[in-house]
């Protein structure tokens, strides 16, 4: 069992959890992920590691409570324990020798973009960070991101906070203003990562994306998370989750991620009616 030692609600549907997992904390690297399962009946769900504290033996995850498993996790409190927490999985991020980087986060993806910016900033790399949200109410981690970037631009789709528009508009403006990046890191919803890649492609700026396909085991034994990258089949759980965005078949990834959408919706309605989101047989 893995104890929740800290819980912080970042916005109405995004929660930060610090979890006691000394083995994972000892080995975790930026870019890696964990798989959790709340209880015996639960699903295995992957989440990228947002932070870790080797001395305290804790791992921080930031989760958007969108489906049954994440709602169950989000409903748990400090002192509660979850059944399974396995990691660190996947390959740590390799930034190479980039000197000037644009780190782009979309929505809850900022939770993953933030540690990347932090790692780069810590290495003395110039970091411009663009964080995009639908509207003002869901902005998360603003102070944290500000602290690890040379320049933070917040965008909102509806213009209720920061710059009006999408992250891609902000990135295009930075490029047009003459900023030369040798790496762009984009983490967020698949369409966002896809459009960022479309912006960077004509300039040939290397663009790294962190993919989020459906996973079961996360150790390379089922291929559920397979993606096509440069025409080759890759398993995101062992070959990724970071890939060269210009090589990724985003359309296929989007289709595959929608595989269980109808079932999930049914489940969500079902669970809301019966238990208000909390399992009773757990």
């Amino acid at each position, binding site marked *: 069992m893995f104890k929740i030692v800290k819980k912080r609600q970042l916005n109405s549907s995004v929660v930060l959890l610090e979890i006691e997992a000394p*083995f*994972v904390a*000892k*080995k975790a690297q930026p870019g890696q992920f964990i798989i959790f*399962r709340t209880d015996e*009946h*639960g*699903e*295995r769900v992957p989440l990228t590691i947002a932070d870790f504290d080797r001395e305290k033996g804790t791992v921080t995850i930031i989760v958007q409570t969108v489906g*049954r*498993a994440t709602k169950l996790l989000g409903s748990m409190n400090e002192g509660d324990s979850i*059944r*399974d*927490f*396995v*990691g*660190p*999985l996947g390959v740590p991020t390799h930034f190479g020798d980039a000197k000037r980087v644009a780190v782009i986060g979309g929505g809850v993806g900022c939770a993953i973009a933030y540690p990347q910016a932090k790692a780069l900033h810590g290495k003395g790399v110039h970091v411009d960070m663009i964080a995009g949200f639908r509207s003002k109410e869901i902005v998360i981690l603003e102070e944290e991101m500000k602290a690890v970037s040379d320049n933070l631009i917040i965008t909102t789709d509806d213009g209720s906070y920061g710059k009006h528009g999408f992250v891609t508009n902000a990135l295009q403006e930075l490029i047009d203003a003459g900023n030369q990046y040798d790496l762009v890191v984009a983490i967020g919803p698949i369409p966002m990562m896809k459009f960022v890649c479309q912006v960077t492609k004509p300039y040939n700026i290397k663009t790294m994306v962190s993919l989020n396909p459906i996973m*079961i*085991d996360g*150790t*390379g*034994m*089922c*291929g*559920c998370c*397979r*993606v*096509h990258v440069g025409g080759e*089949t890759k398993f995101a759980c*062992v070959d990724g989750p970071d890939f060269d965005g210009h090589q990724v*078949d985003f*359309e*296929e990834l989007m*289709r*595959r991620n*929608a*595989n*269980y959408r109808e*079932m*999930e919706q049914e*489940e969500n309605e079902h669970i809301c009616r019966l238990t208000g989101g909390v399992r009773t*047989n757990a």
Partner: protein
Amino acid sequence: MPNMSLTKVPMPEQAPDVRNKNFEEVATGYTEEMAMEEAKRCLNCKHKPCVSGCPVKVRIPEFIQCVAEGDFSKAYEVITSTNSLPAVCGRVCPQESQCESKCVRGIKGEPVAIGRLERFVADWYMKNGSDRVEKPASNGHKVAVIGAGPAGLTCAGDLAKLGYEVTVFEAFHTAGGVLVYGIPEFRLPKEIVKKEIDKLEALGVQIMTNMVIGKVLSIDELFDEMGFEAVFIGSGAGLPRFMNIPGEGLVGVYSANEFLTRMNLMKAYLEDYDTPIRKSKATAVVGGGNVAMDAARSAKRLGTENVYIVYRRSEEELPARAEEVHHAKEEGIDFQLLTNPVRILGDDQGHVTGIECVRMELGEPDESGRRRPVEIPGSNFVLEVDSVIMSIGTSPNPLLRTTTKNLEANKRGCLIADENMKTTREGVYAGGDAVTGAATVILAMGAGKTAAESIDAYIKSKS
């Protein structure tokens, strides 16, 4: 007086059209009377050919005599002195090519039903026997086992009986390996696997789940920081192969590992478990091994109307056990033999709509000695299916060999180990599918047993 019947006492089974709608065990097992009657068919041969066919050397005639006399407790003791998982072996071993293939009674008529008797004894003991296990005195030596599948569990059980402090590191949240994620409930109830594993824990074997060795700890750390004196690798062959034909990225294409893991480990077919699985109208399972049979029969039980086995050779070459093929046919699985997929077709939503296949004929034998299948030009046709399960084999996961120094593998990615299960690195032993590539449960158990003997000899030689 021996029972001179030429045939085995029949195994009671659920009727095909009943069982293909439920997940309960197909074969329901012998009664005490049936078991005693079958046991009397054993001639108690002096040279015991059956034992030589058993990878873990169960003292077969001895336990069968106990059954014939109605002393089931004693029979259990005899079996478990060499076999840690009898309820599993009695169910999933291919006895026809092992113990029973050597049985003298099989020369004229059917061999003695050794597997069914082993299963009977194990089940009887679970119900009626004592659940008290004597924990052996510790000898103070620590051994780490990587992987809680049949190889690792057997090795751990044997070492624990010798007094070793054994820790098993398992990547999944449940121990059992292929016994829990691969083999379906209707062939091997998970409750039985759990009880067998509980017994190992009572012997003192410590099982740590959620531990992916190679990620969370390296083999070096097991030795240097955690103080283990030897390591056994039983990490299996879990990496699925795909055919690399067009359409494998479509929605509705599964590897057999994914499909079976969702079904068996995550219990996706049960409503009160959260993991989803697609409900299909028609499914093509590509491949002809036991895993393909398991996937096809599971798909049928999910309510899939048409389930096809697509296999490129003929019935004779099917690698699955004859019994499984027979069961699958009875349950209504449609065998498309001498048929090979060319591509998977999808609609504009990216969902599977069919699988284009080509008919094959058998040509000259290839290097494996089997006749090579050759395409018949122009024989292409489409099977209309909305899901495809690829079951064309697996290979060992590269995680351990890529994170461990001096641990060598062959070009197929299988760890190199000698006949004593010793790898190229001192103190590290390996066995089961991690060494052989995908094989059988009982061969993995045999390897685990041999490795336990080697590890015992190695540690004794050092101290």
